[in-house]
C-alpha cells in the first residue's frame, strides 16, 4: 500500500498518469454538464418563488462548491508538502490556486447576477456569505502573489503552504456562515437535515452539474499539475529523456 502511494506521488509517474487521466475525467464531465445544462434549463420545473431565475443555481452552486474544494486541495497539498516534504503535494497546491480563483470569481459574479432580481441588489457588504466568499478570492490572489514574489521554489512552497493553512478558517466560515449568522443568502439546499429541499426534476440536473464540474475541475487540475511537475523537474534526467524520446512527452 505504502509502495503504491509512493509510486503514485513520484513526479514522473504522475506526469504519465495525468496524461491518461485527463480524457477519462473530461469526457464524462462534459457529458454530465451537457445533460445538467439541458435538464436544468428546459426540463426542471419553475420555482414557485423565484420563477426561472432559480436556474442560475445550476452554475452558481457548482462554482461555489469548487471554490472551496480547490482551497481544500491547496491547503491539503501545502500541509502534506510541509510535513512530509512531498514534491508532488506542493505542485498540487500551486496548480489548484488559479482554478480556485477562477471558480470563486464565477461564484461571486453569478451570485451577484442572481441577487439582483431576487434581493434587489447586486451586493450586500454586511452579508457574511458574500463577504467571506470575497475574502476567499483575496486569499487566492494573496497566495498566487506570494508564490510569484519568491524566486526560490522551495521557499515559495513553504511560505504559501503556511498562508493556505491559515486561510482554511475562512473556508469553514464560508460554509457555515448561513447557519451561524443572519444572511440574505439562502441556507443549505442539498445537505439539509431530512434530505435535499428540492424536487427530483430540479435535483438530478443539479447533482449532474456538480459531478460534471468536479470531473472537469479534476481534468484541469491534472493538466496544471503536469505543467507544474514538468517545470519543477526541468533539470532532471527523466525530463531530459522524455523530451528527447522520439514520441515526445507533451
Amino acid at each position: 500500500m505504502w509502495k503504491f502511494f509512493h509510486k503514485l506521488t513520484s513526479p514522473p509517474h504522475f506526469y504519465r498518469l495525468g496524461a491518461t487521466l485527463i480524457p477519462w475525467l473530461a469526457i464524462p464531465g462534459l457529458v454530465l454538464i451537457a445533460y445538467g445544462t439541458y435538464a436544468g434549463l428546459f426540463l426542471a420545473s419553475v420555482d414557485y418563488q423565484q420563477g426561472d431565475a432559480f436556474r442560475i443555481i445550476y452554475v452558481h452552486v457548482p462554482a461555489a462548491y469548487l471554490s472551496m474544494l480547490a482551497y481544500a486541495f491547496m491547503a491539503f497539498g501545502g500541509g502534506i508538502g510541509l510535513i512530509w516534504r512531498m514534491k508532488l503535494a506542493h505542485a498540487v497546491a500551486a496548480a489548484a490556486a488559479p482554478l480556485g480563483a477562477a471558480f470563486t470569481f464565477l461564484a461571486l459574479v453569478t451570485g451577484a447576477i442572481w441577487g439582483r432580481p431576487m434581493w434587489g441588489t447586486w451586493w450586500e457588504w454586511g452579508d457574511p456569505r458574500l463577504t467571506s466568499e470575497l475574502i476567499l478570492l483575496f486569499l487566492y490572489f494573496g497566495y498566487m502573489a506570494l508564490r510569484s514574489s519568491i524566486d526560490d521554489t522551495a521557499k515559495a512552497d513553504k511560505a504559501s503552504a503556511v498562508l493556505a493553512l491559515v486561510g482554511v478558517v475562512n473556508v469553514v466560515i464560508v460554509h457555515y456562515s448561513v447557519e451561524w449568522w443572519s444572511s440574505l443568502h439562502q441556507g443549505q439546499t442539498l445537505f439539509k437535515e431530512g434530505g435535499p429541499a428540492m424536487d427530483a426534476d430540479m435535483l438530478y440536473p443539479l447533482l449532474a452539474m456538480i459531478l460534471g464540474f468536479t470531473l472537469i475541475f479534476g481534468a484541469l487540475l491534472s493538466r496544471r499539475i503536469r505543467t507544474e511537475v514538468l517545470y519543477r523537474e526541468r533539470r532532471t534526467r527523466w525530463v531530459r529523456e522524455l523530451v528527447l524520446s522520439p514520441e515526445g512527452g507533451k
Partner: protein
Amino acid sequence: MDALAMGNYGPYVWSCFALTLIVVVVSDWRSRVRHNQVYRDIEVRIKALEERQ
C-alpha cells in the same frame, strides 16, 4: 422564444451560463498554452545542450 425569455429573467440566466462557459474555456485554454510553453522552453534548452555536447 419562451425558453429564451426565461419568464423575463433571460438576461440574468443566460449571462450566468455564458460567463461559466467563458471561465471554463479560458481556464482550459490558459492551462494548455502554459503547458506547451513550459514544454517548448525545456525542449529548446535541452536540445541546445545536446548540440553543444
